[in-house]
């Protein structure tokens, strides 16, 4: 646990940003991860008084305040309708309800943790982060940036027509994932995001307009053939490593299995949407 000399519940984002420029200060989200370290902090900066703990849904997008909890994501009807329940699936295995009532979207995304389920999921979506000074940038760009001292204000998800699915493998329930995979198809492109590689989540895109439209029941399950192709492509192009949860070789096998399952599920969800 960290120690601190001062706790400041800021009244403006400018105040938070100013305070956050000092290396001795610490900006906290849910603080579930930072409490695991040992640091002597001057001022703890808390954003919970800025009304950034809501999900706003408009015609075009979801605007998720940085202090929104993972539990709010899990229970949000609009988000789950839009993602075929994939958002719920991506967070419901994280420890327990009490934990998810504390952990925040801002903390999870800004931290760009390798183990992050939610970062893996968001990366497969048409998503952006709104930074106080840095403006609005695609999440895929943000995820590869090194950490700076800006303040993440919101995560924005555009409601681009899409189909989604999320899969993860864990050595035991409630543990960090050994591998996480989110798959989506929008703008005629498959987006395959793989997390817990164990490095931070990585996005692979494959342009393939044919899959969802050329369905011939006479042939041998073309969607399965395509899912197999995508999963093998992902296993080949996404780098994985070894840690105590699994070896690189095991993770490569997991990519094949999870990405294939996710592609098939996303495909089924698409058909369901078209028929409803």
């Amino acid at each position, binding site marked *: 646990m960290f120690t601190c000399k001062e706790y400041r519940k800021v009244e403006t984002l400018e105040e938070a940003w100013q305070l956050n420029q000092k290396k001795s200060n610490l900006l906290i989200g849910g603080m579930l991860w930072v409490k695991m370290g040992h640091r002597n902090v001057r001022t703890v900066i808390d954003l919970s008084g800025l009304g950034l703990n809501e999900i706003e849904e408009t015609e075009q997008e979801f605007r998720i305040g940085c202090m929104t909890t993972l539990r709010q994501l899990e229970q949000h009807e609009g988000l789950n309708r839009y993602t075929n329940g994939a958002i719920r699936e991506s967070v*419901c295995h994280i420890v327990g*309800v*009490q934990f998810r009532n504390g952990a925040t979207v801002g903390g999870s995304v800004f931290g760009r943790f390798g183990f992050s389920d939610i970062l893996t999921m968001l990366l497969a979506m048409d998503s952006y982060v709104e930074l106080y000074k840095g403006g609005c940038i695609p999440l895929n760009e943000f995820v590869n940036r090194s950490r700076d001292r800006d303040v993440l204000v919101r995560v924005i998800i555009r409601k681009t027509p899409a189909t989604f699915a999320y899969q993860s493998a864990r050595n035991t329930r409630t543990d960090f994932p050994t591998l996480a995979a989110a798959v989506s198809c929008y703008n005629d492109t498959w987006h395959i995001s793989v997390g817990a590689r164990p490095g931070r989540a990585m996005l692979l895109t494959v342009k393939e307009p044919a899959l969802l439209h050329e369905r011939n029941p006479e042939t041998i399950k073309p969607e399965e053939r395509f899912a197999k192709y995508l999963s093998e492509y992902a296993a080949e192009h996404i780098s994985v490593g070894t840690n105590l949860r699994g070896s690189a070789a095991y993770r490569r096998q997991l990519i094949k299995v999870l990405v294939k399952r996710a592609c098939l599920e996303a495909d089924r969800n698409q058909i369901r949407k078209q028929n409803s």
Partner: protein
Amino acid sequence: MQLTLHLNGIPICEEIAPDTLLLDFLRAHGCKSVKRGCETSNCGLCTVFLDGRPILSCSFLAARADGHAVTTLEGLQEEAKEFTAFIADQGAEQCGFCNPGFVMNALALFRENSDPDETEIKEYLAGNLCRCSGYEGQLRGIKNFLEWKKRGGAS
């Protein structure tokens, strides 16, 4: 810094160190049901309600509870009585160390969902670890409790 909150319905206003964890604050105020089990935000033993929602008090600054209502098992004696007596009669637990956190989260589950199925029970209580029962006894106890309640309970 000054902290003002309602603890089990009682208003409290006092000076605290800014890095005081809610768990330590609560124990210092006699709420000994709130325990530190794992120190890694995983075991659920420190579960309390913040404005009615279950949270982990071991990972929550007391300062953040300023202006809010905190409820511990000490403040839920009436609500918990029926459930805990039933679970004890079922012999669902062994050492009982995890019991306060488990009871708090089970009550949170019943408040949110009065008729959960097995998957929903398991999912909701996944963050409450028990190192001796293997969860089977507790799951059976909860299912029997819900059945008993459906049949009218004690009334």
